[in-house]
C-alpha cells in the first residue's frame, strides 16, 4: 500500500515537473529576502516599520519525493534573529488523489509555530478541488497554533474511521467526542492538507530550530523575549535569566506577575520569589497584585506570608473577600501563630465576620470565637 502511494507520488512529481518546469517556485512571499510586513497569518506581534532580512541556515526540511527545502532565518537590522521560515512544496494525497501543497511556514525562535503565508498562485484546495476560502485559511491557522492537537497522536487512518474501543488509546479514552474534536479542528474537506501541514510545523524541525537559537543565545535575546508578549518567550526567558538578570529586569517581571497568564505568574512566584521576598519593597508589587491574580497563584503567593510586612498582613485582612475558603484558613492560621494581632486587623476581621454577604464569614466567626 505504502509502495503504491510512493509510486503515485513519484509519478505525480514527475508530472508536476512536466507541468511547471523543474524549479517549483513561489511567486510571491516565498522568494522574499526581506520581510517588511507581517506574514498574513501570524501569532507574534509585528511592530510597524520592522524590516527583516533573510539569511540561510544549515537546516532543511526533507519532504518525501520533493526533496530538501531550506529553512531560513530572518534578522532585524541589528542582526538579531527574529523568525525562521521555509517555503514548502509537499504532496498531499487522499484516496490515491495527490496534489501539491504550497505554503510558506514561519517558526518562532523557540521552534513554535509562528504563522504562514499562502501562495496567491497556488492556493490550497479541498477534496473536491475547491479553493480554500479565507475562513479556511483562518481555521488552518487556528489548527497550527494548537501544538497539542489531536492530529499529533493519531495516524491519519485513525482519523477518518471511528476506531473500535478496545484497540485504541485515548485521553482517559477516545470517544465519539474525540471524533467530533477532529472535525471541529480541521478544515472541512481538507483533512489531509491539515494533517500534513500540522506535522510539518510540529515535526522534528521544531527541536532543530530551538537548538539553533539556543546556540546563539545572548542576554539581549533573553531580555527581548522577556519583554515580548509571546508566552513561550516569557517562560523561556524566566527559566534562563540569571539571578542578577532578574534584578535588572525586576520591573518587567513584576508587571508580568500581574498581567501574565497563570502559568507564567505561578512560575514567577514559585521560582523567583525567594530572591525578592527578603526585600519587602521588592515583594510589594507582588502583594499589590493579590486581588488581580488567579486563585492558584494567589495560594502560592500566600505561602510567603511569613516574610510579609505587618502592613501587608493588615492589608490582606481587609481583602478577605477575594480569598477562597482554604486561603482564608491559611491566613487565619498565620494570624494564630502571631504573638499579637493588631487592633486594625481585628477590626477588619470583625467586619468580615459580621457581613451576611460573605459565604466564608463563618470561618472568621469561629476564629474570633476561639481566639478572643
Amino acid at each position: 500500500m505504502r509502495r503504491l502511494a510512493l509510486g503515485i507520488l513519484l509519478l505525480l512529481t514527475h508530472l508536476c515537473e512536466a507541468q511547471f518546469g523543474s524549479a517549483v517556485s513561489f511567486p510571491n512571499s516565498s522568494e522574499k529576502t526581506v520581510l517588511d510586513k507581517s506574514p498574513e497569518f501570524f501569532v507574534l506581534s509585528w511592530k510597524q516599520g520592522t524590516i527583516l532580512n533573510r539569511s540561510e541556515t544549515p537546516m532543511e526540511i526533507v519532504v518525501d519525493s520533493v526533496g530538501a527545502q531550506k529553512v531560513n532565518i530572518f534578522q532585524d537590522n541589528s542582526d538579531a534573529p527574529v523568525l525562521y521560515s521555509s517555503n514548502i512544496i509537499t504532496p498531499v494525497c487522499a484516496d490515491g488523489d495527490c496534489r501539491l501543497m504550497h505554503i510558506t511556514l514561519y517558526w518562532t525562535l523557540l521552534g513554535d509555530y509562528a504563522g504562514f503565508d499562502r501562495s496567491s498562485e497556488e492556493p490550497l484546495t479541498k477534496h473536491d478541488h475547491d479553493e480554500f476560502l479565507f475562513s479556511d485559511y483562518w481555521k488552518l491557522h487556528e489548527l497550527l497554533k494548537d501544538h497539542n492537537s489531536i492530529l499529533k497522536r493519531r495516524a491519519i487512518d485513525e482519523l477518518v474511521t471511528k476506531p473500535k474501543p478496545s484497540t485504541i488509546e485515548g485521553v482517559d479514552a477516545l470517544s465519539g467526542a474525540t471524533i467530533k474534536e477532529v472535525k471541529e479542528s480541521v478544515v472541512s474537506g481538507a483533512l489531509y492538507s491539515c494533517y500534513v501541514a500540522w506535522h510539518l510545523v510540529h515535526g522534528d524541525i521544531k527541536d532543530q530550530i530551538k537548538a539553533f537559537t539556543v546556540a546563539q543565545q545572548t542576554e539581549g535575546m533573553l531580555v527581548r523575549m522577556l519583554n515580548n508578549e509571546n508566552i513561550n518567550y516569557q517562560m523561556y526567558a524566566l527559566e534562563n535569566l540569571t539571578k542578577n538578570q532578574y534584578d535588572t529586569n525586576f520591573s518587567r517581571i513584576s508587571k508580568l506577575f500581574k498581567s501574565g497568564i497563570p502559568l507564567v505568574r505561578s512560575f514567577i512566584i514559585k521560582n523567583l520569589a525567594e530572591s525578592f521576598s527578603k526585600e519587602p519593597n521588592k515583594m510589594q508589587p507582588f502583594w499589590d497584585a493579590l486581588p488581580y491574580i488567579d486563585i492558584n497563584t494567589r495560594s502560592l503567593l500566600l505561602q510567603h506570608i511569613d516574610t510579609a510586612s505587618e502592613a501587608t498582613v493588615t492589608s490582606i485582612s481587609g481583602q478577605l473577600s477575594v480569598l477562597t475558603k482554604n486561603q482564608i484558613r491559611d491566613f487565619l492560621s498565620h494570624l494564630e501563630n502571631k504573638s499579637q494581632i493588631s487592633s486594625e486587623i481585628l477590626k477588619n476581621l470583625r467586619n468580615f465576620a459580621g457581613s451576611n454577604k460573605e459565604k466564608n464569614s463563618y470561618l472568621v466567626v469561629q476564629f474570633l470565637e476561639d481566639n478572643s
Partner: protein
Amino acid sequence: MKKLLIVTLLLFSSISLFAQDVLVEAESFDNPGGWLVDPQFVEQMGSPYLNAHGMGKPVKNASTKVNFNKSGSYHIWVRTMNWVPGEWEAPGKFQLKVNEAVLDTVLGTRSGWGWQYAGETKINKKNETHIELVDLTGFNGRCDAIYFSTKKTTPPSSPKKLAAWRQELAAEPNAPEELKTYDLVVVGGGLAGCAAAIAGAEQGLKVALIHDRPVLGGNASEEIRVHTEGIYGNFERILKKIDTKHYPNGSAESKLDQQKRDENVKSYDNIDLFLNWRAYDAISEENSVKYVDARQTFTGERKRFTAPYFVDSTGDGWIGFWAGAEFSYGRESVDTYGEYWEEHGELWSPKEADNAVMGSSVLWGSKDTDSPQSFPEVPWAMPVSKDYAEVNGEWQWEFSRNDLSQIDDAEEIRDHMLRAIYGSFSNAKKDEVNKNRKLEWVSYLVGKRESRRLVGDHIFTFNDAKEGREFPDGVVIEKRAVDVHYQTVLEDEKNPDFISEALFYRGPQYYIPYRSLYSKNISNLFMAGRNFSCSHAGLGGPRVMLTTGQMGAAVGYAASLCKKYEVMPREIYTGYLQEYLDLIEEQKYEKIPTSKK
C-alpha cells in the same frame, strides 16, 4: 433492629432533668423517596446524608416514622447547608413535614454544614411521629440529620464537637461490637478491589470486600460510567469478568457491564461482599494494620474486620492514611525524579513542587425528545458556567485547583461541577435547537483521578514508563500512551475553569513492579488502584482501570502466597519471587478455578 439504630433516644440527665432528645439520621429514613444517600464526604462533614438530586425537578418526599418516649413540645434543628450561598435563592431548598404539618421554615439556606433551626412542634408519644422531607427545587438540597429536643439548645457545629456529641447521643462504644475475621480484607470495590478479591478468592483465601456503594466498579460502575481502558496484561481471564464494553464515557449501556461484574464477584463463595459499607478507620500496631472498622451507610451499623493482610483500593488511600502509611500528594519538582519533558515544560512537570493534581469529574448527558422540555433558571450556576453552553459532558469536564484537596474538598469540587453542568445546560437550552432536549443523567458521584499516593518500595515514575523499564518483578504491563491533564484556564483565563486538556506521551510498553504495590512502612498493607506507589507524572499512564485492575489481581495472588508462607508482602519479592511469577503465569490458563467453591 433497624428502628433502634435509626432513632437514638436519650435522657440527658446531666444537662436537664427532663430534657428529651431524639436524633434522626436522614440516611436511615425508612423510605428515602427520591432522595439519594450520599456517603462520599463522611470524613469531612461527619456522616452520610440525603441529597435531593432531581436535576432540576423536585424529588419525591423522603419519609420515616419515629417513636418518642415523652410527649411535649419539641424544638427541631436540621443539619443542612446551602451549597451555593450568594445573591440568589439557595438552590437546595426544602421543608420539613412533621405529621400533617409542613413547617414554615425553608431549610438548606445556611452556609457551611451546620444546624438550622426549623421550628417547634407538639409530639404525642402515643402515636408514631411521621417525618417527611419536602424538596422544593430538585437541585441538591441536603439533609444530614434532624434533631428534636425539648430544650432550645443548638447542637454543636464544629466537626470535632459534633462527632463527640453524636457519639454521646448514640452511646456508641469506641470499638464496633462485631468482629469479622478473614484472610484478606479488601477495601474499595473499583476494578482494582474487585480483581484483588477475585484473585485472592481463587487461591483459596477467605476475602472480605468492603465497598461503600450498592454496586461494584468504582468509576467503571453504572453510577459513574467511565469505560475501562488499558490492556489486560497477565490477567485477562479475571479482568474480563469485571471490565466494560460500553462506550463512550457516560453510556447508559454501562448497566449491562454492571450486572456482569456484580454477578461474577458474587459467584465466589469465599468472597464476603459488604456493599454499602464504608470503612472509617484502620488501626495499626507496630506498623501493621490490625483492624479496619466500617459502617453501613444507611443504618449506621458497625463492624470490625481483622486479617493478616489488607488491600487499600479506595483510590484515596484511606486505609494507608489511617494506618500511618507514608504517602504523597501533588506534583513533585521536575528534579525529584527527572521527569522533564521539554515540549510541555511546567505544564508537565514543574521546576518547583506544588499541590496540583489531575482533577475530578462528574459525567452527565442529555437527550433529544419529541416535545419541548423546560429547564429552570439557575442564576447560582452562572458564576461558574458563565456563557459556556453544552448538552453533554465528557472526560474534559474536570476540576482541580491547587487550594482544593481532591479529598478534603471533594464536596466543593463536586458542587462546582454541578454548577458547571446545570449552568452550561441552561445556556444550551436558550438555543432554539435544544428546545426538546432533556437533561437525562447527571452523576452525583465525583469520579476521581488523583489524590493520595501511598509510598511503596519502588516509586513508579514517568521515566519507568517512558523507557519501558523492565523489572524482575514487573507484574503489570501496559501499552496505552501516558497522559497527564491540566486545567486549560492555566493557559488562558478566559477558558472555563472546569475544562481540562491532556498531554500525551506515546512510549513503549511499560511495566509496573510488584514493589510499587505494597506499603513501604506498613508491613501487611497492599495497595492497588490510583493510590499505588507512583509520582504524579508516573500516574499518567497506569491510572486507567484495566491497569489498576491488573494491580488488583497481582496483589490478590501475592496475598495468597503471603498466607501460604506466613510472610509479609515484601518477602514475596525478596524470597518467593519466582513462585509468585509462576503462579501468575499459571493462572492465565486456569479454566475453572478449583477454589471457586
